[in-house]
């Protein structure tokens, strides 16, 4: 563990001290095990205190933690590496920011699709920072149609700072690509389960986010805009990003409270990266539970419910008789 976020400073200091104690133990014959135990308890205590009272902005930071598991990490863990990755939109190219293919989870074949980020500078560039171009959305749609053809349920892993706002993306119809996915996903015959595993930024996230069930990891965020950009537009400076994060009500708990998602998947203390095995297990259970319920329904019922769910989102005020 070398990546500490600014609000994790207290933990960093304690862990440094713990390391010092361990070094002493290793070098000398002095028994420091009671101190080590004491320090470890203190760390656990501090973590509990810190991570159970996270502000929305702190969660946004966790959602972008450089060690956080990405789409392919989930897919490889869930399928035990039994993943047949497929490429290309059959029109322009293969978008590396959007990955997908068939994979086996406990004996059932699924279509697994997600936005993929990179771990180091080179990988990040290769993955375009998880920002798909139009061909990424068209590749995802192609794979979803393939899944529908062979009657395989679909799982999407959402993790993007947004659809790529580049010149060529505009030339090739970024808006049309996302719009088309929204329309087509509404009518897919197979069960669709979407999980926001990190960042769920705007139309770029929604472009693979139309599901019978939409779940969020505990420290993921989902909104119409990132807190930084919201701050820039409304306050003309980045400095209000913390305030914007709060105002946008972008956390899993807020989204659940507003009935805009269907469930929350718990993360280990300190975030998914602190114990990936645990988060993979939680995700796997959520998929099993969701798919068990959805597979019992007919395609017509699922589509009707899907449309009804999204159609009921929004808050409006009916005209009063006096008006």
């Amino acid at each position: 563990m070398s990546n500490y976020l600014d609000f994790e400073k207290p933990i960093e200091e304690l862990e440094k001290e713990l390391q010092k104690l361990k070094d002493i133990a290793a070098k000398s014959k002095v028994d420091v095990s009671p101190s080590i135990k004491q320090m470890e308890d203190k760390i656990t205590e501090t973590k509990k205190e810190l991570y159970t009272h996270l502000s929305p902005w702190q969660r946004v930071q966790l959602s972008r933690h450089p060690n956080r598991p990405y789409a392919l990490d989930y897919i490889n863990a869930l399928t035990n590496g039994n993943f047949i990755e497929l490429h290309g939109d059959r029109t322009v190219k293969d978008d590396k920011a959007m990955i997908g293919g068939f994979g086996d989870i406990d004996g059932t074949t699924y279509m697994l699709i997600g936005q993929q980020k990179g771990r180091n500078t080179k990988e990040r560039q290769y993955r375009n920072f998880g920002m798909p171009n139009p061909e990424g959305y068209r590749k995802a749609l192609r794979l979803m149609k393939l899944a529908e053809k062979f009657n395989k349920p679909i799982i999407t892993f959402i993790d993007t700072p947004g659809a790529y706002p580049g010149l060529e993306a505009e030339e090739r119809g970024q808006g049309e690509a996302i719009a088309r996915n929204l329309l087509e996903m509404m009518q897919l015959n197979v069960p669709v389960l979407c999980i926001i595993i990190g960042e769920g930024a705007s139309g770029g996230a929604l472009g693979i986010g139309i599901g019978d069930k939409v779940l969020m990891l505990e420290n993921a965020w989902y909104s119409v805009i990132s807190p930084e950009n919201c701050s820039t537009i409304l306050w003309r400076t980045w400095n209000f990003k913390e305030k914007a994060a709060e105002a946008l009500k972008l956390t899993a708990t807020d989204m659940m409270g507003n009935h805009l998602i269907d469930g929350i998947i718990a993360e280990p203390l300190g975030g998914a990266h602190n114990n990936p095995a645990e988060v993979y297990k939680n995700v796997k259970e959520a998929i099993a539970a969701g798919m068990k319920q959805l597979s019992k329904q007919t395609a017509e019922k699922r589509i009707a419910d899907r449309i009804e769910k999204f159609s009921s989102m929004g808050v409006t005020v009916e005209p009063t008789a006096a008006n």
Partner: protein
Amino acid sequence: MSWFKRIKEGITTNTKEKKETPEGLWHKCSKCKKIATMQEHANNSYVCVHCGHHDRIGSEEYFALIFDEEKYTELQEGLTGGDPLNFSDTKPYKDRLIESRKKTGLDDAMRAAFGKVHENDLVVCCMDFNFIGGSMGSVVGEKISRAIDFCLKTKTPLLIISKSGGARMMEAAFSLMQMAKTSAKLSLLAKEKLPYISLLTDPTTGGVTASFAMLGDINIAEPESLIGFAGPRIVKETIGKDLPKGFQTAEFVLEHGFLDKIVVRTQLKEFLANFLTAMKN
């Protein structure tokens, strides 16, 4: 003592004079700067008689332009927005809504109406840019949603006139989900094989482009309209270069294959009637 002294204080133009559709006797085109009488300009559907520049107009003008004898029935009149997130930036969203209603006389950024276009039935949803930049909040989505319900019930074709900066940030994820909601309803309209015409006008960007505006059976646009997903400033920042001339204009979008036709406003009604008749026969 300075040599020069400002006699008048700063900006003296009041808001009324800055209105998008100016009132008065004369109209000066914002593009070619040539002058026509206001009457001439209005008779030409607010298209400059000299250079063809399309002035930005609102739902009232579009309804009058499209419907026979300017007669129509408004749908879902009086539906207004709530403040689901209790949002406040430099000013509370609630106050912003009240102010915008007062200033524009509109309920929100979308109006829907039903009427006839050369004897063809048509439901028209039209955005108003004056209302918080034509941004898409719950009311915009709900009005489209209910207008489509009306289309399904009465087997009527739909026209949506887009004119929007995109999502309404003050409704955050609720605003985002209007993209899903409108697409959901459009998928039902498609299943019933009822024609949907999308008209993109200046400007159409963001979440509106990435949902209903790009989903027409046919997509048409007014000349020179700005049409895109990301705004030009963001694209410029992303690529770190100046944008090519004509980037994200209707002509550019047509050339790249995302529009069927650019229709001059004065010919809009004829075009709609022709298309609707063609779909019937």
